[in-house]
């Protein structure tokens, strides 16, 4: 070990393992995590024959598919051995372990982050019986297509149509314009053979707004796109070049009525539309992803500050006092300023992520019982937390890169790939300014409620107390 780094470790005033255990949620959790990491890494999936930095765009995708398949094969084995469910996906693929193996993103991420959760949240019991088992086994690979070339966060503006035909008991999916083509979903391009598609539902000549449908995109044997399906990849991006983001268009593609996910709203055989208890329920998957995202960006920040801090202990620079050796750059207060705030931010956002994850689970349980009271509050909070945490993470990674001088610019530092991943999160699942404005709608309503003397939900309750006597 580098002697400077060793000296830093010798001088540390607290028990590092104690803090590790606290971060993991207990000594047993640390042990489990380490065991899992050991088990996954010993498979050697993360090892590259040629550094992936030097591969072409196509080769990067092929390598990502290979790694993702081996990783999923391993998860499947774990599930059989340990008889576990979704949590294995989360633990192995989420956070830092998954991104260690698939450093520039995985083409199968959306299968477990969006496809399966949407089926769990929006499909009927009968539909879940039909699809979830196959999805868990990876007999089918799915993704989630919502965003269109001309329509992003404002999902009520989506143009893709699903028109019900009562004669054949089918929906006809159609992309009426270029701007209605689905654009960006990970794994959509050449990986997934099924997809949850969000489209405007028409029945009996009336539009009922956006609804989710499960659509087969490719033949299960040949993987050829099915008739009427226009699918492909969107091209090279700033980062996430392993995620296989795709575009998708429909030319009057027919799917059975049972392929509309009908846990909430329904279309009966004769075309009668049965409204969902709340239109907000369609937004469940997006909220789930935003909540998960906050945790994910914490992993990237933890990596970034670890790299930058260790480097700062090893690196010496300049000679502020004559006849004395070059100090470690960690001794410069400007460097401490860059690093310490990064470390604190990891803890601050990690605890906020845990808090909102807990809230998400509570609200989801309340939803199942028909109680939707806290749904708008969760939506508002998940929007702004997604925006702030991804923006802060991008800033932290960039600040850490800069703190390593020119060496931080090397791909071998890991900063450029990390920056690509976190900065992508600033725009996917809702561009950050749009997210903040969604929260603002809730805040303005809360302000007006407070002004009218009405009680406020816990996370905005302060508005009533601190604003008393000011600007009211």
């Amino acid at each position, binding site marked *: 070990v580098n002697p400077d780094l060793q000296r830093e470790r010798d001088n540390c005033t607290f028990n590092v393992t104690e803090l590790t255990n606290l971060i993991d949620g207990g000594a047993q959790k640390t042990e489990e995590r380490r065991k899992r990491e050991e088990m996954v890494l010993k498979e050697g999936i993360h090892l590259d024959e040629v550094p992936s930095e030097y591969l072409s765009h196509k080769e990067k995708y092929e390598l990502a598919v290979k790694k993702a398949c081996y990783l999923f094969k391993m998860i499947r084995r774990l599930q059989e051995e340990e008889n576990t469910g979704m949590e294995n996906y989360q633990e192995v693929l989420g956070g830092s372990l998954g991104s260690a193996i698939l450093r520039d993103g995985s083409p199968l991420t959306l299968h477990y982050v969006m496809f399966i959760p949407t089926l769990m949240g929006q499909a009927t019991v009968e539909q879940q019986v039909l699809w979830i088992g196959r999805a868990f086994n990876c007999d089918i690979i799915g993704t989630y297509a919502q965003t269109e070339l001309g329509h992003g966060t404002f999902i009520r503006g989506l143009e893709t149509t699903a028109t019900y035909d009562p004669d054949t008991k089918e929906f006809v999916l159609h992309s009426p314009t270029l701007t209605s083509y689905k654009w960006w979903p990970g794994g959509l391009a050449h990986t997934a053979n099924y997809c949850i598609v969000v489209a405007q539902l028409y029945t009996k000549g009336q539009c009922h707004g956006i609804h989710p449908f499960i659509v087969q995109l490719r033949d299960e044997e040949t993987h050829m796109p099915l008739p009427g399906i226009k699918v492909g990849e969107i091209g090279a991006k700033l980062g996430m070049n392993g995620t296989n983001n795709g575009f998708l268009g429909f030319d009057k593609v027919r799917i059975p009525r049972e392929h509309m996910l009908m846990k909430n709203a329904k279309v009966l055989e004769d075309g009668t539309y049965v409204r969902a208890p709340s239109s907000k329920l369609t937004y469940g998957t997006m909220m789930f992803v935003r909540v998960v995202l906050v945790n994910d960006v914490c992993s990237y920040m933890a990596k970034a500050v*670890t790299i930058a801090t260790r480097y700062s202990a090893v690196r010496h620079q300049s000679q502020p006092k004559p006849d004395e050796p070059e100090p470690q750059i960690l001794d410069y207060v400007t460097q401490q300023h860059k690093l310490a*705030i990064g470390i604190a931010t990891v803890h601050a956002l990690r605890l*906020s992520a845990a808090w909102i994850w807990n809230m998400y689970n509570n609200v989801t349980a309340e939803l199942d019982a028909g109680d939707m009271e806290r749904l708008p509050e969760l939506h508002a909070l998940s929007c702004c937390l997604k925006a702030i945490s991804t923006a802060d993470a991008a800033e932290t990674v960039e600040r850490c890169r800069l703190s390593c001088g020119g060496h931080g610019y090397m791909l071998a530092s890991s900063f450029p790939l990390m920056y690509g991943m976190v900065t992508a999160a600033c725009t996917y699942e809702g561009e950050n300014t749009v997210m903040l404005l969604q929260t603002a709608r809730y805040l303005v309503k809360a302000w007006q409620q407070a002004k009218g003397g009405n009680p406020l939900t816990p996370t905005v309750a302060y508005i009533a107390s601190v604003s008393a006597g000011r600007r009211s």
Partner: protein
Amino acid sequence: PPWENTVEGIIHGFQQVSAGKIGACVANIEKRQRTGMSYEDAWNMTSVQLANASEAHCRAFILTTYFTETENQIKSVSPALRTVLLQLVDLYVVYWALQRVGDLLRFTSISERDIEQLQSWYEELLLKLRVNAVGLVDAFDIRDEILHSALGAYDGRVYERLMEEALKSPLNAEPVNESFHKYLKPFMQGKL
């Protein structure tokens, strides 16, 4: 209310900033509507302020959560770790106060002297945390295979690893690249 240069005081200050910004947005929207502007146009005209208000609300939420959750966590940890965790909370809260000095001046009773004290407090915290910087990141317990960085490996062999990585460049597979014969040499000899 008088300003308090404490963590709780700063968090309360952030809540005042957030509430103040939301109130200002509502007032602006209403003012614009009174001039005949539609609600949607008034909203759009106020949207820069609205996004700011939303950010302020989120900052207040994160600061509150970080502080309260840490207070809960430290009940069961050793005194040495408790000290460091509280230093980190202090640092984070003071950092954001200094980042948002303008907002605090606008919506709270913070004074210039308070700000000077905050700056000194921040610098003292950096000094205190300096000794534990490496320990704090070691505690994230990220294996080298996961970190995947020549600069950040546990053993600190930064320069050796950078050189090892450099040698993996495909350009180093041969001493002379073919572009020399095809372009560079003819160019230098004026034969291109």
